[in-house]
């Protein structure tokens, strides 16, 4: 059995109440150590107030070859953006 520590994906929430954001990965024997390592590797300059660690093996990613079928349908739906609609200036701020 390999003794290489498994890989973890690290997510950090910054000071300003935004979502946890993926910042990178690191190796650690378990979740507890992953949090400790993440503190040292990814928050040396006050980058965060909260850390999530997730085993990389637990992540399911969309496949690059599905890029077309997954994301193209939204390309043609420009009406989802507010700028699609012309609102007369007289109406005021909307």
């Amino acid at each position, binding site marked *: 059995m*390999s*003794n*290489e*520590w498994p*890989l973890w994906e690290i997510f950090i929430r910054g000071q300003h109440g935004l979502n946890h954001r993926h910042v*990178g*990965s*690191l*190796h650690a*024997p*378990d979740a507890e*150590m992953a949090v400790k390592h993440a503190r*040292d*590797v990814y928050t*040396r*300059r006050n980058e965060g107030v909260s850390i999530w660690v997730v085993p990389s093996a637990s992540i399911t*990613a969309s*496949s*690059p070859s599905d890029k077309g079928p997954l994301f193209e349908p939204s390309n043609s739906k420009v009406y989802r953006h507010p700028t699609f609609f012309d609102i007369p200036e007289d109406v005021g701020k909307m």
Partner: protein
Amino acid sequence: MYAQMVKSEATTEAPELLAGFQARIDAGEKIEPKDWMPEGYRKTLIRQIGQHAHSEIVGQLPEGNWITRAPTLERKAILLAKVQDEAGHGLYLYCAAETLGVSRDELTEALLSGRMKYSSIFNYPTLNWADIGAVGWLVDGAAIMNQVPLQRTSFGPYSRAMIRICKEESFHQRQGYDIMMKMAQGTPEQKAMAQDALNRFWYPSLMMFGPSDKDSVHSAQSMAWKIKINTNDELRQKFVDQTVPQAEYLGLTIPDPELRWNEEKGGHDFSEPDWSEFFEVIKGNGPCNAERMEARQKAWDEGAWFREGLMAHARKRAAAKVAAE
């Protein structure tokens, strides 16, 4: 540059596939780990990112050498933070390399067996405190020159690692220059130490960018793939032009009698480093090659019980948790 003379790997895929890949790069798209990529691109990147990571890690040794002997508690804390950053840089880069299908242990073993290299600069000794100033100022300065354009490299994980690293490097160079200012404005003996450090680190710093473009056989493919953004000579020229006024401010003399401003090219003329020395250092015959590898080997061997022990503990706890459920 932390990755010198990275050999580009040959690629044998179908021309249509290669052209499609090149078109993505030319369009400024980022290549991500699960995307299709030529074998040569993958292997060249593993070599380059791996060499870069090894350089960050081995690069801790010459500076770590002075942590316990820093002249004040503040300098000690600063140097400790700087060296800790370099460990972080190594980790960001190893992770980027691992997305290409190589394991951390494989990379470490390749370094220890000598199959993979690290930057020639870290095979020079740090003899006294002024050298710590010169390393931050010149070595991190040269590294920044190379790393800033690499933020735009085509491989997503490498580019993101470079962005993180660049945010932290400016502190490294400034703390070094700050040491140099203190020394250069100190007693005549201290100023002489600063000058001596500059004398010894100047040419090895110029070597960091790798051999001259005319002798650099691996550049063309890497530049087309945006693994390399500028040529060695371009970066070296930029580094010299940036450093000359900084040395002047310190009242120190760059150890090159040929150094002068060339109005026509809008840059300095300067002497090439001794390339035969560079090739000797790369081959393993620099002043500290053996010492650096011994230190890495020792850390790897003596850390084995710790790596294994924590893993055994983690497995035991995971098994106990499953049993309890």
